[in-house]
């Protein structure tokens, strides 16, 4: 059986403003070295709150399928 998991994916155009970090209910996002936000895949459940908050519109929710870990863009 193939299991799917949703997670947030952040593009490199991120401005590192931290809006997503604040809104994330699971503390799954952090700002790496003041350059870009990064997602902790273990914590992220793909709720999409960060997508709504991001002013730069660089976050999308992707679906990871099975062991292959293939990501498919949804938004």
């Amino acid at each position, binding site marked *: 059986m193939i299991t799917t998991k949703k997670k947030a994916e952040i593009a490199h155009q991120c401005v*590192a*403003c*931290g809006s997503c970090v604040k809104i994330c209910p699971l503390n799954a996002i952090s700002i790496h*070295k*003041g350059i870009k936000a990064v997602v902790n895949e273990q914590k992220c459940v793909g709720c999409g709150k960060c997508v709504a*908050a991001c*002013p730069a519109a660089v976050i999308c929710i992707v679906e990871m399928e099975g062991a292959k870990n293939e990501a498919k863009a949804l938004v």
Partner: protein
Amino acid sequence: MKQKRWYDYLWIASSVYLVLGFFNILFAWLGLICFITPLLISIIGGSKAYCNKYCGRGQLFELLGGGFGLSLKMKPPRFLRSKWFRYGFLIFFMTMFLLMIYNTYLVFAGTDLREAVTLLWVFKLPWKWTNTSFVSPWIAQFAFGFYGVMLTSTVLGLVTMILFKPRTWCVYCPMGTMTQGICKIKYRKDKNNGTKSKTDSGVVENIGQ
């Protein structure tokens, strides 16, 4: 619900700053904190902690746009999010800032003090109700100029907050663009010097692009 920290209330400081400027323009000098602190944090610490935690203006937009629902929460246009616009706006903003410094120098050199706050780089608002006679004219001139910079960025931030997402200002904020640029340079430099820690490797893809 995340626990609130002291820095989550810095939006109060930003609001008070704007109000204080109406009573006495000399309070505008306090705004330098918002210029120097993020630069120091990015140069010394290599992070955008100021934007992420301590920016009262960003918090104010978040509160007004998100909490009070004053934002249409639309996706900002592509041009506003482009690298060209962000760095172009930074160059424009810094040019205007340097012009303001030059005007301060002219007053220092003997030109008459102009008691006006320039809004959006064009509109001169008469601001004659403040007594600035107890300080040197150039100190007052800088205050007028700097308050104009702060007021202009607040107005731009409010307009884009209403039209787009609450923190749209953060996308093209000159300080944010500058500090992110500093962090990128610092990161590349550290990487080239071989100080990149093991935990960093492989964690972030496309970083520093």
